[in-house]
């Protein structure tokens, strides 16, 4: 009997906890969205929290669309989005450009192709160029790797290249990292990712003769570039504003640059 009462009490406590859990403490900031910017946000959050121990920042991935949605619904105080054009539902949010990002076209290191024209890139991703021979490579069929529908990286890529209607044959992966791994595993693939995540496992090809380098992007010669936005509902305030200010500060921008993204201005 007594034990039963204790059980009931515990049950009620759980219900109480459930009821009371809309809780958002002032010092808690959730940042969610673009998987491409997520690693940077985590590092920035780490450094920011080292200076400000009254603030707790949680960084989640989920993608640009989720970042927009989470910022609108209040699930996250700050949304991260890396789209060339923000969708209409983001109109109600205040966006702050915090970085720019180059999109690198990548192939397996053993692939012979080193340079592609925008036209060829379009052909490869539309499925009209089916053999590497047609783009100056070996006689092997092309396998395209792209991101899933809704991905900010994919829509930015498709918008900057223009006129892409992705072939149905394309293998779909759900993050920059998995694209890189898939390309690194198969000599006949081509994919794209944020240039900050390039590694020796894959090789970036030149686009219209321009290398995907920081200098080329900063000088505006490399075309495949997109902005990174932090989104807030209304003008940022409180700890969220402090964090965004930190990201825009020389220190924050320097850190963004040192890890492969480009500063906002």
């Amino acid at each position, binding site marked *: *009997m007594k034990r*039963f009462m204790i059980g*009931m009490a515990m049950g009620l406590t759980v219900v109480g906890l459930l009821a009371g859990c809309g809780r958002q403490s002032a010092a808690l900031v959730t940042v969610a969205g673009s998987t491409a910017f997520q690693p940077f946000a985590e590092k920035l959050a780490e450094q920011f929290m080292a200076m400000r121990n009254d603030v707790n920042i949680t960084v989640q*991935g*989920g*993608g*640009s*669309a*989720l970042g*927009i*949605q989470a910022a609108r619904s209040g699930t996250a105080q700050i949304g991260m989005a890396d789209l060339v054009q923000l*969708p209409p*539902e983001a109109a109600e949010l205040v966006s702050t450009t915090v970085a720019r990002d180059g999109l690198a076209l990548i192939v397996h290191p053993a692939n012979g192709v080193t340079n592609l024209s925008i036209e060829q890139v379009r052909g490869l991703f539309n499925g009209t160029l089916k053999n590497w021979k047609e783009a100056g490579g070996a006689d092997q069929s092309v*396998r395209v790797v792209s991101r*899933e*529908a*809704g*991905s*900010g990286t994919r*829509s930015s890529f498709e918008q900057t290249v223009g006129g892409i209607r992705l072939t*149905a*044959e*394309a*293998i*779909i*992966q*759900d993050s920059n990292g998995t694209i890189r*791994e*898939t390309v690194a*595993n*198969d000599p006949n*693939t081509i994919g794209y990712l944020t240039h900050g995540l390039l590694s020796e496992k894959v090789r970036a090809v030149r686009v219209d003769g321009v290398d995907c380098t920081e200098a080329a992007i900063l000088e505006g010669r490399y075309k495949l570039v997109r902005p990174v936005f932090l989104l807030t509902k209304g003008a940022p305030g409180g700890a969220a504003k402090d964090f965004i200010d930190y990201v825009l500060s020389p220190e924050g921008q320097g850190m963004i640059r040192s890890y492969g993204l480009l500063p906002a201005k």
Partner: protein
Amino acid sequence: MRNTGERIVQNALMLVAFSALASLLLIAVFIFKEGLPFLLRTGLRDFLLSSDWRPQEGHFGIYPMIVSSLWVTFGAMLVGAPLGIACAIFLNEFVPKSVMRVTKPTIELLAGIPSVVYGFIGVIVVAPLIRSHLGGPGLSVLCAAVILGIMILPTVISISVDAIGSVPNSYREGALALGATRWQSVHMVVLKAARSGIVAGVILGMGRAIGETMAVIMVAGNSVKIPHSALDSVRTLTANIALEMGYATGQHRQALFATGIVLFVFIMILNSLAMAAMKKSVK
């Protein structure tokens, strides 16, 4: 006092007893609430039978995912069911009980290996083998079928072993006494008697295969197209949801929940079949 206590306990327990049912309903309600309006707006035929999945342009056809899910599941059955059933027969009929006592738990232990680990092995070991020996991207129907087939082995074996084990010994002895070999007694008598139990095991295995998500995302390649061969890369219903969920808003998101409804219905049909088969085997 004691009687009131008893009555409170009884009512509390009755309430608790509905927790599973309530959860099921809650899940159904929320998945349907998110997906059903979309389904009604788009029309069942356009959603289920169109091959055009371009969420950005407002085209939501999941026919390729349905076909792919069925192919992958069918392939997994082709790999898992014969191996699993053969294994169950061998363990029950051809080895001493002591061997069985060690082997069966070992196999069931393996049911606990996380699916992501199987998926990873698919990417690292199976896909490159397929790519270099059979061609294609490697991440394919075949790769998914092999990995899922292995994943469902413990389920199929465990339930089949129980079904075969519950066939009364007198059946076997009857056959053996008439001069049958062990194998004759197995395929003429034992398998007939255990058939519905084995079928139930296979169906539950199918349920697991069709519902598996992470491993499939890793090994199937996720192309939105109707596969023409086992070497083609495909996207299943589950993969469609998990891949795009994080990035989806508005209609796109509702379409993913509608995909969830389709999956839900598939699973319910499979479960009902399995339960019916189980009931038959109990009789």
